[in-house]
């Protein structure tokens, strides 16, 4: 894993990187990266966040939606979600979507 996570602007629109696919299995999401045949299994919470990263919505909107859906404090949701998204970005599981 990269030691430094990329700076993340919550206005960024992110989607699965090229060669990264996922499937929902029960309450888990399996993310598969073709380049190195690596899989990542996400629990239901992380899986929900992954599924929201659809290449169309800015991260800020996704945080808003999750906070609203769970009746949670937005700042708490952002504090939980942004580092996770940063890790996925650093691991080349996500990529920025331009012109979304």
């Amino acid at each position, binding site marked *: 894993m990269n030691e430094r996570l990329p700076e993340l602007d919550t206005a960024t629109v992110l989607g699965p990187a090229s*060669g990264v696919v*996922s*499937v929902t*299995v029960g309450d888990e999401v*399996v993310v*598969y990266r*073709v380049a190195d*045949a690596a899989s990542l*299994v996400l629990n239901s919470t992380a899986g929900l966040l992954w599924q929201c990263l659809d290449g169309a919505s800015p991260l800020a909107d996704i945080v808003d939606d999750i906070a609203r859906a769970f009746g949670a404090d937005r700042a708490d949701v952002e504090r939980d979600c942004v580092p996770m998204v940063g890790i996925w970005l650093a691991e080349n599981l996500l990529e920025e979507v331009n012109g979304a």
Partner: protein
Amino acid sequence: MWPHSLTIGLAGTAISIGTDAPEVIAALEAWRIPDVGDPIDYCLEVRPPAPGAGLPRPFPGLYHGSTALLRTRDISRLTTAFRRVLASHARPAGEGYVRLSLMPVARHGVALLAPPATIAAVPDRWLLAEGFEPLYTVSSLVDPASGEVLVDAPLGSDEPPSALAFGGWWLPARHWDGDLSPGFAVAEAMTLVIGVTAGNAASTLRAVAGLVARAHPTLAPRSADTVKEGLGAVLAGSASR
């Protein structure tokens, strides 16, 4: 060093074959290609050298690298297994199919897919005597939609592939024990899929998830005795299907 060898090409894959049987080489001449750097290798020993006095005569065997896939005195079974192994390389999974690096063990038309090394730990004679039909190979083609295992016909044969019902699967034993969640089962099973590309990754992942939903895999037993018990347990009900 084998007295006879050649490299063949099957569906873009280079396979190096070493053997003590010149007739094996002659039968594969049609697929010969020039030697390449890093081929997959198989060895077929039909006439193992006689051991010293008082020692048991070794069985003829089919080897993939240093792994014995099959040892048997039945040369016909051995060469059929060898040709089936080669055929598995000649038939990549098409759209909607998945090729897994597992071999079928069948009974009454139902197949359990298992790691070849797991099945190799159990004597072939015992398997046959118990009514199991081990189809020695290095990979199996599965149709997730129909739930069928499509057994490759031996290379050079005109036979169509035969179909067995997909009855379950064992994944290679790892350094941990215990149950796999469905998600981890899919992740583990993906390591066994041959020929995943950017173009087919999404459909392959869905297909593997479908297979996990159809029959949840377990980790393969580690000893010959537990393999025997496990085969009996998994395929016990197949007679009534």
